[in-house]
């Protein structure tokens, strides 16, 4: 009888021990893998869109900047 009770209380402990060991193993492994993996590439830099040189009506507001930008495009 006592042996039966002891057996019942033992049931599941083997699995619990196994789970504990495996969890630790995976946790350590994942940490080392995370460290070894290359850092995710930063998102590509997007050129900041220059401020609009046109008025709502399409009139050029800043001639100096327009010239600068044309020269930049040509280069």
């Amino acid at each position, binding site marked *: 009888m006592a042996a039966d009770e002891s057996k019942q209380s033992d*049931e*599941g402990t*083997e*699995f619990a*021990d*196994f*789970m504990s*060991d*495996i*969890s630790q*193993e*995976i*946790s350590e*492994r*994942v*940490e*080392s*893998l995370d460290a*070894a*993996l290359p850092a995710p590439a930063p998102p590509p830099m997007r050129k900041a869109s220059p401020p609009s040189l046109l008025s709502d009506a399409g009139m050029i507001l800043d001639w100096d900047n327009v010239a600068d930008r044309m020269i930049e495009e040509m280069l």
Partner: protein
Amino acid sequence: MSVVNYSTREITCKIVYYGPGRSGKTTNLQHIYSQLPEERKGKMVSLATETDRTLFFDFLPLDLGTISGFNTRFQLYTVPGQVYYAATRKLVLQGVDGVVFVADSQSRQLAENIESLQDLHENLADDGFDPRIMPLVMQYNKRDLPAGEVSPIEELDDRLNFRGVPYFPASAIGGGGVFESLRGIASIVLARLSAPVVKR
């Protein structure tokens, strides 16, 4: 089979229990199944003949839940040990991540153990795996039998374990050594998370 999938955050390990007929492969899985808490008990699939010999294979899925952010599953299989089920053994071995070789400790079974071990190596090689680097542990089962009937551990290890892999004395019928063997192979397989099994 991929052991770790970073995109889906999954770890899946296929472990195959290999060995000669009646060495105790199914008994290993039955003991593991008996120890599972109710909430983790899936279905153990077992196809046996009328004389309780494994006809096709046994399959025990072990869903360990989420560990360190990874949904972790172990899939445990046995192969039919009888010589004439060679095709089934090859099929079950496909995509294997690790092998527990269940050897029968009885002295009169030594030749069967050696034959089964050679069969394992041939099947792994046929499937493109390098048998020399496949994760493997040896289990010397039936240590509960009278001393006169079983070979000493040292002798078994000398004759069978030429790779010098970890070995575990076991008495699967009472549960001894079963989880130790599973932990042993799991540890080796998990240690290779960053290095998948190399195909030749």
